[in-house]
């Protein structure tokens, strides 16, 4: 309701005599009126002994009552007078509500203790991650010993969801990467008349680096987040707890098929992305006037089987890490509506950080091994 629109909207009249100040309220004191009168009434009531005369009040809601009680408490010696029974009922109810004990503000920990708590939390997170990794390894080894216990249908479903359904996106991204790389590298190479070496450059970078890395980003964004959201919802709905209590290992039922899918799907995605990229590059080379055979010769002359296999091995490890991190984030989801979103974000960020770090480790290892 708008205060000024209603004829009986609440109003405040102030009368000051030598001995006392009277604040007369009349009409309807509802939420809108109370909001409008709040600053003025508080200013008048703060001064000191004042009488809040409510005899003319026709209606009062709880917001209006809050205003009156806050005003009553604002000045020493303030008192309320003349309220009709229905107004008194609301005032009494609100007075009781205000009297209830309020929460004590949580004492903030001193700096040292806060650092300690953060360290403790970080340590627990590391411990949980290591425990998860150990449990996953045990489950994997157990499945190797008893392969018939693996849920094949479930694994096939995940292979489809993480793999075949990602093919269109992978091909699109691959072709575009090939086109862009070829185009960008052709510009500086042309100044030396060395455009013919574009396939060497693009081929090596796709096979060894960009193929696995970009496929990993696709998997983290599409599948890692989906795993976290799916398992996160299951933990929030206590489905994971129900599995444990039924004596079914959530690791074997939920995590293993997903991690296997990540492991198997990534080399395929990486290969697909690389091939699509090479095709995009060949198309650009064609536009520059180089026939397909030249491109092929250049590729054959620079690329070795070890480049391809090294890239695929890396991709498989990336897939394992992304799927594992997604499942871990999902199973560790807390309670509440934000938990699932947090888990999905954690899965994508964790997955991308993990593949970049792993990529660095692989780079050093391959350099040492001469691959």
């Amino acid at each position: 309701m708008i205060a000024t629109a209603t004829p009986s909207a609440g109003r405040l009249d102030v009368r000051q005599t030598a001995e006392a100040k009277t604040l007369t309220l009349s009409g309807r004191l509802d939420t809108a009126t109370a909001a409008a009168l709040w600053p003025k009434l508080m200013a008048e009531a703060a001064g000191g002994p004042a009488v809040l005369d409510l005899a003319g009040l026709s209606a009062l809601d709880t917001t209006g009552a809050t205003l009156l009680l806050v005003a009553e408490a604002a000045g020493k010696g303030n008192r309320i007078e003349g309220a009709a029974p229905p107004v008194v009922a609301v005032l009494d109810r609100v007075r009781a509500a205000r009297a209830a004990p309020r929460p004590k503000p949580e004492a903030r920990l001193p700096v040292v203790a806060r650092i300690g708590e953060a360290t403790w939390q970080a340590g627990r997170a590391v411990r949980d991650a290591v425990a998860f990794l150990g449990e996953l390894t045990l489950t994997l080894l157990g499945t190797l010993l008893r392969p018939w216990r693996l849920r094949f249908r479930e694994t096939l479903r995940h292979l489809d969801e993480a793999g075949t359904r990602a093919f269109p996106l992978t091909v699109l991204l691959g072709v575009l990467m090939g086109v862009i790389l070829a185009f960008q590298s052709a510009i500086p190479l042309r100044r030396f008349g060395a455009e013919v070496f574009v396939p060497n450059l693009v081929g090596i970078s796709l096979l060894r680096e960009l193929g696995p890395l970009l496929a990993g980003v696709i998997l983290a964004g599409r599948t890692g987040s989906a795993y976290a959201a799916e398992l996160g919802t299951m933990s929030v709905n206590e489905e994971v707890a129900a599995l444990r209590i039924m004596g079914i290992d959530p690791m074997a039922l939920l995590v293993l098929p997903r991690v296997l899918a990540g492991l198997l799907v990534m080399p395929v995605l990486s290969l697909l992305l690389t091939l699509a990229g090479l095709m995009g590059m060949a198309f650009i080379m064609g536009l520059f006037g180089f026939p397909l055979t030249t491109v092929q010769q250049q590729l054959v002359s620079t690329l070795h089987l070890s480049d391809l296999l090294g890239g695929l091995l890396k991709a498989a490890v990336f897939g394992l890490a992304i799927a594992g991190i997604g499942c871990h984030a999902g199973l560790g989801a807390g309670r509440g509506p934000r938990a699932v979103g947090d888990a999905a974000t954690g899965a994508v960020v964790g997955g991308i950080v993990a593949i970049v770090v792993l990529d660095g480790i692989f780079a050093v290892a391959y350099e040492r091994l001469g691959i």
Partner: protein
Amino acid sequence: MSGEASVIEVEKLAAGFGGHMLFRDVSFQVKRGEVFVILGGSGCGKSTLLKLMIGLVPPVAGRIAILGTDVWATEGAARLDLLRRIGVMWQQGALFGSQTLLENVEMPLAEHTSLRPAARSEVARVKLGLVGLSEAAARLPSEVSGGMLKRAGIARALALDPPILFLDEPSAGLDPVTSAGLDELIRDLARSLGTTFVVVTHELASILAIGDRCIMLDREAKGMIAEGDPRRLRDESTHPTVRAFFRREAA
């Protein structure tokens, strides 16, 4: 039929989804200051009736007027004005999980009033105090129990002091003691604030404890099968479904 004190008028209402009819020819009035209960078994359409009344789901036929305004014929500012004069407690509370209980209650106040932040938080604390949740003001919805969630839902519905409150299944998922506490709160608010309550429930104990008047919907009959004081219906009704409901017999 329409008495001068009725705040809600429902006339010949029909609802359904697709080709499936839930109920038809439902007519009743809710009087100012009463606790009006909509009851019936699972699947009879009582929650749908509530959603029709608050303008969330369109009726197939019929008319609903709240405080003299046709819910389905108003738009724009008039509709907003109507929405400010009703409050709804949702079955699961529907509190915003990223905000504390206090912030949840403050939200409608911030949107619809000119109260300054300090006054707003003072008012919101009073609303939480009215439902007995003063101490939980700083907690998140995920950190409180089911009964407290429902109370917080009522506090948020009360934020703008609407004359009418709609409650969807207040006792669902609560233990009898918590549920009885909630019933007591509803009666207390109706008495002290004069708020009109429309409550959807199938909890027998709750119906008898809070209801001034009720209507009963039935899935088989696809409509209303009883109207009146729940205690009299329990003792005097001859309708087999109503008798079965109040005596907890299998139909």
